[in-house]
């Protein structure tokens, strides 16, 4: 029997990050996939990144993950969303060529040390005394490991819907792992059902691109990963079209044939990414809905029409897309469909994404009720690092809401659960001003190095960068008189006194470039770092104000709540609050305050009772 420290089941975005992360930590790791050739497939939208999601990609990359560099390897279109707003909400996004993206992922997993790829169907967990001891494959092979990470996407009871048609399975053409699913059901885990959907894929050769508004790749040189020195592929443009009245009429006339409206699908879908039939039903008065036509790759004609995910029958899909300008003669390559699937209530997980009920079993990705590659990748990374750390007696990087979107997501999932597929939004991060997409390395790479999950290449990059940062700091601390800036034509009053360069950076119109006369050659050494430090300076007053808030947070984080804390005996908590707190089992008072519906009065009651329990416990000891 082959023995591993960590076994990862599934080769999607979560599985890849989990497996590579665990292996980077030094754990002997196996990645089990039904089809090794499918590892790294993008099953839905060809885009990676975006608002909130771009932050996750940069953070996973800062911890030396796979998705950032693979996105660059596949990128055929770069766009920085929210460019007109403050830099903390900029959202880097790329369109990635599916083939190139997958090739890059495959190349990474195949060259990853400590990682063994195993082709086979995961059939059942091997349990000993309620703990995970390994994994049984469908062919009878047993793999031993004390930690198993499930990254199996929508495999749990996945049903595909297209009009009146039904198919079983996660993606079109792949099997749902039924036996493992049955075992998990048997473990009496809290489960719920969600749905998601995809649009039809179009043949780009049948689109009249000339009739449409182009959206070119932006012409700056930024990349998803700082380790990608420059953009690698020719850049293509996307185009924008819209749905029309005629299309809306066709949808309305056939609503009863959509499983969403016929009652066949009852599960909740995402509010922020509704199907086109949902949009017409709920916002029927709108003139039309924007549709982005995104090329899926350089060597394919397939185009992804972002904005019209649907489960209508094929004939209606055809009618609808042909009412969109530029698509009058378009051919559908693969029709859209909706997927309904089971997920585990993520409140059954501890913050390391381990199931409280089955020690040693970790879950990451869509199985936890999230949607999106980036969300999956980030969870996979957390589960992989934590599982490896636990197996090896090490410590994974300590992530919290003040240092990463990754932790915001894990905290939200494990405390609040989900009522719709969870997608990252910048609004979820209360310390958003310090969590910028462009300072992810500064926030996390050092933690990664300390935990031992950073490879040599990134470590060397990091050390060079830290040396430069030190030089910037020295220069930025120099005190310069307003006169000197004003004489160079900067918008500063002569009598504004003496300030450090860092302080001058807070003034409108004083850009990092404008400081070149004082920075000398340093200015051009690392423009991205110069920009990051300038933003630090600009946000400094806000961050200083948050420090007091963070001190309070740390204080209530210092008050632990046991997993079996008897919420039922605390008077003043409503039944609903007791139920939510019991399900989420917050680890600290601070976490309890983030469980939805917990009122200030209830929180004070908890505070007092938690302290009383602690002091009683000390007296008893």
């Amino acid at each position, binding site marked *: 029997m082959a023995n591993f420290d960590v076994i990862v089941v599934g080769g999607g975005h979560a599985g890849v990050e989990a497996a590579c992360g665990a292996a980077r930590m030094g754990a002997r790791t196996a990645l089990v996939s039904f089809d090794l050739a499918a590892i790294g497939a993008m099953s839905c939208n060809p885009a990676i990144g*975006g*608002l*909130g999601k771009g932050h996750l990609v940069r953070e996973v990359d800062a911890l030396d993950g796979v998705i950032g560099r693979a996105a660059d390897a596949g990128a055929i279109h770069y766009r920085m*969303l*929210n460019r007109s*707003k*403050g830099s*903390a*909400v900029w959202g880097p996004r790329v369109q990635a060529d599916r083939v190139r993206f997958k090739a890059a992922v495959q190349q990474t997993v195949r060259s990853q040390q400590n990682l063994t790829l195993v082709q086979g169907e995961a059939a059942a967990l091997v349990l000993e005394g309620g703990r995970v001891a390994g994994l049984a494959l469908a062919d009878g092979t047993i793999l031993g490991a004390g930690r198993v990470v499930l990254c199996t996407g929508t495999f749990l009871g996945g049903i595909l819907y297209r009009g009146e048609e039904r198919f079983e399975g996660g993606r079109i053409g792949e099997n749902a792992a039924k036996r493992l699913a049955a075992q998990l059901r048997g473990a009496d885990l809290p489960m719920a059902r969600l749905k998601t959907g995809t649009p039809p894929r179009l043949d780009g050769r049948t689109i009249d691109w000339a009739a449409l508004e182009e959206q070119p790749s932006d012409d700056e040189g930024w990349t998803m990963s700082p380790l990608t020195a420059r953009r690698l592929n020719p850049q293509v443009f996307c185009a924008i079209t819209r749905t029309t009245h005629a299309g809306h009429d066709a949808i309305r006339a056939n609503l009863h044939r959509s499983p969403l409206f016929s009652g066949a699908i009852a599960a909740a879908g995402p509010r*922020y990414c509704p199907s086109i039939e949902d949009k017409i039903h709920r916002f029927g008065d709108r003139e039309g*809905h*924007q549709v982005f036509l995104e090329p899926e790759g350089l060597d394919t004609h397939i185009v992804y029409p972002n904005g019209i995910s649907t489960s209508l029958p094929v004939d209606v899909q055809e009618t609808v897309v042909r009412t969109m300008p530029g698509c009058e003669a378009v051919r559908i390559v693969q029709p859209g469909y909706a997927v309904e699937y089971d997920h585990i209530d993520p409140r059954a997980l501890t913050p390391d994404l381990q199931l409280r009920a089955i020690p040693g079993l970790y879950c990451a990705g869509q199985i936890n009720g999230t949607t999106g590659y980036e969300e999956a990748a980030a969870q996979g990374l957390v589960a992989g690092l934590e599982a490896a750390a636990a197996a090896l007696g090490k410590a994974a990087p300590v992530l919290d809401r003040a240092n990463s979107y990754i932790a915001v997501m894990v905290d939200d999932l494990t405390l609040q659960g989900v009522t719709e597929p969870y997608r990252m*939004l*910048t*609004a979820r991060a*209360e310390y*958003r*001003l310090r969590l910028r997409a462009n300072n992810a390395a500064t926030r996390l790479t050092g933690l990664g190095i300390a935990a031992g999950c950073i490879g040599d290449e990134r470590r060397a990059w990091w050390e060079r960068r830290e040396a430069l940062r030190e030089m910037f700091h020295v220069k930025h601390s120099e005190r310069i008189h307003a006169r000197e800036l004003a004489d160079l034509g900067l918008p500063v009053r002569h009598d504004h006194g003496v300030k450090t360069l860092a302080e001058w950076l807070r003034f409108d119109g004083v850009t990092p470039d404008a400081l070149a006369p004082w920075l000398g050659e340093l200015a051009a050494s690392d423009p991205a770092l110069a920009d990051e430090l300038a933003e630090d300076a600009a946000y400094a007053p*806000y961050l200083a*104000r948050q420090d007091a*808030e963070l001190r*309070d947070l740390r*204080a*209530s984080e210092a008050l632990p709540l046991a997993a079996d804390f008897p919420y039922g005996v*605390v*008077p*003043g*908590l409503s039944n609903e609050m007791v139920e939510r707190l019991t399900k989420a089992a917050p680890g600290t008072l601070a976490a309890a*305050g983030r469980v939805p519906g917990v*009122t*200030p*009065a*209830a*929180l*004070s*009651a908890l*505070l*007092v*009772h938690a*302290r*009383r*329990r602690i002091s*009683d*416990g000390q*007296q*008893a000891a």
Partner: protein
Amino acid sequence: MPQTPTIFALSSGAPPAGVGVIRVSGPAAYSALLALAGRVPAPRRASLARLSDASGAPLDEALVLWFPGPNTATGEDLTEFHCHGGRAVIAAVEAALAALPGLRRAEPGEFTRRAFANGRIDLAEAEGLGDLLAAETEWQRAAALVNAGGALSRQVEAWRERVLALSAEVEGVLDFSDEEDAADLPECFTWNIAALKEELSEWLARPRSERLGEGFRVVLAGPPNAGKSTLFNALVDSEAAITSPIAGTTRDVIERSVAIGGVPFTFVDTAGLRDEEAADPIEAIGIGRARGALARADVILWLGPEGEGPESAWEIAAQADRAAIHPKSSARFVVSAITRAGVPMLKQALVAAARQGLPKPGEAALNARQHARLAEVAEALAAAERLSDPLLVAEELRRARLALDRLVGRATTEDMLDALFGRFCIGK
């Protein structure tokens, strides 16, 4: 886990009184009632019982009430003994309770603290209750009752909803800017922030609740021998004295707190104002204190030469019974402390002024802590109104929400609770 101690205390006024209400709260409240009364009546029903101690010696005939938790004032099991209010009876019942296992006397504020700890009331309500218990005049009581009843908490909730709605609009712009619905903030957005800020400013401009405790400050000023002390006595004599200790009472500045028409006043008699240079060093100190008192005054009654008093002082022609030492051509009031002529009219005018300057009954008033938090909310809104980057607008709105949360006690620290409940007296 050891059981929570059961506490008891006299929760009505000091004996002797008509009735003495002794409250027992905690897990042993039931057994205590059973031990003293021999039986436990139906919940929330007053019932007459003969109380006796452990040896069977009768203590009193009393009304007893049984409130099973958690839907009680403290959130715990609760028993009330409504005894006869004589000192000996109260002392005997208390001694019998103290002899029971698991029972002890309550610390100051402990009943309210348990109500708070058990989620029965939030911080703003607890503070209102603290003010209510300290209230000595009708005016103070009515104002405190509003906060204790949760009026401020409800108002904060309403503000929070409005800030939340504003936040939602900005977050939509930040997170869904690629969708057409939320491309830009609507024009009324800034206007809505301004409107909310204005509303908060009105609240912030209202008299603070501490002013109720301190009373409306009336300072009598003028040169030596202008008749200040005589008028002072005429104003405070025969009025109900308020016993709250007032810091800063000195030999040179005499303060007296009284209630006139239910409104709390503090009258201050100052040392005569003369040139400090002309005075001897000790007198100079007194004059300095008098100037301090003037600075804190709500109304100054000026008994000195016409037009020489502090700005906006009321000109008083005192000693009207004698040939005036300082005759005034347009005095606001002409009074004689000896014959009391004019004194009732002056009092009436003072009461009218105090009603303007003190928190109004029925209107929630803010204490210093609440005022500071609300000021922070207003400041954050002012910044949000000024800023153009939606990211920073969102941060300011988040700060506003945080300050509102703190106002009603979300994330309160233990120190703060200690300070709060230390203000309460035993039995509450």
